[in-house]
């Protein structure tokens, strides 16, 4: 098979730091090429150069036999390259058809938009993806998975020969991922190439043909998927061998810390009851949309609830806002980092100290030195990869941003942490560090409620697990009795 894309000797520096160092990257026609690497390895930078969002310092890019001089995102779209970002480029208030044909709506002779033609063509595209929705549907009413298919449909409508997918499975349910993989296989048969960026090693073997590993801005290896295995990939990614995915849990749950009773919210949550003990990690499993995040937000006071008793150390708590919650030393690491976790325009330092400013204040003003020093402590523990604390958080890779949000919550010194998808978008090496950190916290008697969509993470880290379905708890398990099957059946709605 010939190469459809050849990127050669790509170099890119940011403020004197090499983000990409002489990277070669090529993709064959009609293959699924997995691009993998730790946070900050250079995957996103490489793709942003291809998309025209960044200019490379040097290097050449050949696509479909022609050398590209990429100046803007429009240019590559017309050449047949489409990118589907994690944050979709769709206009939520517009219909599917309007989104797909945005800026190139078919026109009638009168110059008015030919709605009929637009909808018919959209329908054809959606049919190709076996997505049975009306082209007139407003995009914001679609599920995340459906929106992703709309993005793919849009790419196809441009006659894309190469589609780049940036962690497409991160927000999908297992069933939706299955559908996505089917669509990807279909695309392959039509000779469309896919660059698939992922952190999930399992996916590499499920759909990948070839694999390119980047580390610290350098190409580590480019090889065929069949010629390698999981351990070898991890070794290439982190540059060392990672023996265990999960560190051993040594702490044992102690006395009761938090008790939740008949927590309900109409159409969202029903009679949630559980207890959390000192030193415990309580895993919360369930499918996307099962009410896990809603439960966390209701306990934390971020959303209202209809009823529910929250008892901490035997005392009734009244929590009506996140402020009340934090006052009682309950913290929530939210699931949506960009929208709820960080302030992008602020420095790493300001982000970390945001929820605990009173702890860096001397008399009435913020003490710069004290802040620097206290923030520095968490900066070091979490091994945040940034030149210093004063850089804007938006210049950090996704995983490092997540670490900053974690640092912010650690700094609040809460006794109870609710972690909603704490390792989403984080690479293997950093994940292990976060798990170790969770163990350390529980060793100190703190308790963690960990919401996760990654089954192995739930099984590997939890002392106890509750499983949710449709806003209800459908299963409670102790560590000893946990199996993947039990969680799955409960998650599917069968009460255990």
């Amino acid at each position: 098979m010939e190469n459809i894309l050849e990127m050669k000797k790509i170099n890119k520096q940011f403020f004197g730091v090499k983000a990409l160092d002489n990277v070669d990257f090529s993709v064959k026609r009609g293959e699924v090429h997995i691009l993998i690497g730790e946070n900050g390895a250079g995957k996103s930078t490489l793709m942003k150069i291809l998309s025209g969002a960044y200019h490379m310092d040097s290097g050449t890019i050949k696509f479909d036999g022609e050398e590209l001089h990429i100046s803007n995102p429009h240019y590559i779209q017309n050449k047949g390259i489409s990118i589907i970002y994690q944050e979709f480029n769709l206009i939520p208030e517009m219909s599917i058809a309007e989104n797909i044909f945005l800026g190139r709506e078919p026109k009638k002779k009168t110059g008015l938009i030919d709605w009929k033609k637009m909808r018919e063509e959209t329908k054809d595209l959606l049919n190709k993806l076996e997505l049975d929705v009306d082209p007139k549907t407003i995009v914001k009413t679609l599920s995340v998975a459906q929106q992703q298919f709309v993005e793919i449909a849009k790419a196809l409508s441009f006659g894309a020969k190469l589609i780049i997918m940036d962690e497409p499975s991160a927000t999908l349910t297992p069933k939706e991922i299955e559908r996505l993989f089917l669509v990807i296989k279909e695309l392959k048969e039509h000779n469309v190439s896919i660059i698939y960026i992922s952190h999930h090693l399992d996916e590499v073997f499920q759909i990948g043909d070839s694999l390119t590993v980047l580390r610290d801005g350098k190409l580590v290896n480019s090889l065929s998927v069949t010629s390698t295995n999981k351990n070898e990939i991890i070794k290439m990614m982190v540059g060392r061998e990672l023996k265990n995915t999960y560190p051993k849990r040594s702490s044992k749950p102690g006395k009761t810390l938090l008790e939740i009773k008949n927590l309900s919210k109409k159409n969202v949550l029903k009679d949630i009851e559980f207890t959390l003990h000192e030193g415990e990690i309580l895993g919360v499993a369930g499918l996307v949309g099962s009410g896990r995040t809603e439960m966390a937000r209701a306990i934390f006071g971020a959303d209202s609830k209809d009823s529910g008793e929250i008892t901490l150390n035997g005392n009734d708590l009244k929590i009506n806002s996140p402020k009340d919650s934090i006052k009682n030393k309950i913290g929530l690491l939210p699931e949506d980092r960009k929208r709820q976790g960080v302030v992008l325009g602020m420095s790493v330092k300001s982000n970390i100290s945001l929820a605990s400013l009173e702890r860096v204040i001397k008399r009435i003003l913020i003490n710069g030195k004290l802040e620097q020093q206290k923030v520095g402590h968490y900066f070091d523990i979490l091994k945040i990869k940034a030149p210093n604390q004063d850089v804007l958080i938006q210049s950090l890779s996704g995983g490092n941003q997540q670490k900053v949000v974690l640092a912010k919550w650690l700094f609040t010194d809460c006794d109870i942490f609710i972690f909603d998808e704490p390792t989403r978008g984080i690479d293997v090496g950093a994940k292990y560090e976060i798990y170790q950190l969770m163990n350390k916290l529980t060793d100190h008697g703190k308790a963690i409620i960990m919401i996760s969509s990654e089954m192995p993470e739930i099984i590997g880290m939890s002392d106890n697990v509750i499983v949710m379905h449709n806003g209800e708890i459908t299963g409670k398990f102790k560590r000893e009795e946990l199996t993947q099957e039990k969680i799955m059946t409960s998650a599917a709605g069968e009460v255990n």
Partner: protein
Amino acid sequence: MGATKNSLEKRGFFDKLNNSYYKPEIYAAIGLFGLSIILSFASEYFLTANNIINLFRQVSLNAIIACGMTFVILTGGIDLSVGSIVAVTGTFIAGFIKSGMPIPLSILIGLAIGIGFGVINGLIVAYTNIPAIIVTLASMSMARGTALLYSNGYPISGMPAIFKEFGRGYIGPIPNPVYIMIGIVIFSGIVLTKSKFGRHVYALGGNEETVRLSGINVKKIKMMVYVISGTLSALSGLILCSRLGSGQPLSGDGWELDAIAAVVVGGTSIAGGRGTIIGTLIGAFVIGVLNNGLNLLNVSPYLQLVVKGIVIIGAVFVRAGFAKEK
């Protein structure tokens, strides 16, 4: 060898400038400097001590209001009512004094009325979903109307000399309002950069939901910035009333635009989250120097408005242009 080194150093300087957090402020300062140089050649009067003192006095009121506006814009809001608050405060103070109320009490109640409009702005913006531009547009109209109602549309004059002294007087060679401006600028700067509240203001403009989930009372902060803006506008109203020796219901007309212009020319993002008080001060001086210089050059006031508009667009365009480059 020497040449290479030189060019490297040069790049270093621009690199530093481009990576500096204060980049927009530095560009505004360069603009202000350039503008001043041109004007000092165009008018021999521009650089005289008299004119400089005059310029500072002219700038002081706008700079005070613009400091309050900076707080508001940093949270992603806007306050259109500042000019009307200037008028309503001055009118009431003058009216109270004229009616025989003791001067300190007149000032206090007058300020309270002005600040009251800030409180109303704050309450509505913080506790409803009505956009700030609508809320303050409405209070702009209400405050102006109140001033006109109270005064029947006529200026209220005949203030005692001691009251006028406050706004007209000097300490040394420098007019009193300039001291107040300097005090407000320093105070605002410290609050924004060094206090918990200031940090929350920036964060709120950057990402409201993150701030809320960090356990911060978002409504209180929103409320506070409009109260600050109202307070500083009322203070300007007091100074203006004292300087003019009368309360004028039509004063402060269009001042909201000068204040917003000072803030954005000084590098504050209209979307919130980024900006500094020092930038706003520079912005206020850019607007002030422009007004002053064009007056000296006898440029028609109508044309002045056009030029001011061009400068505002130009300043923001230059910055946006650079930001895009990145």
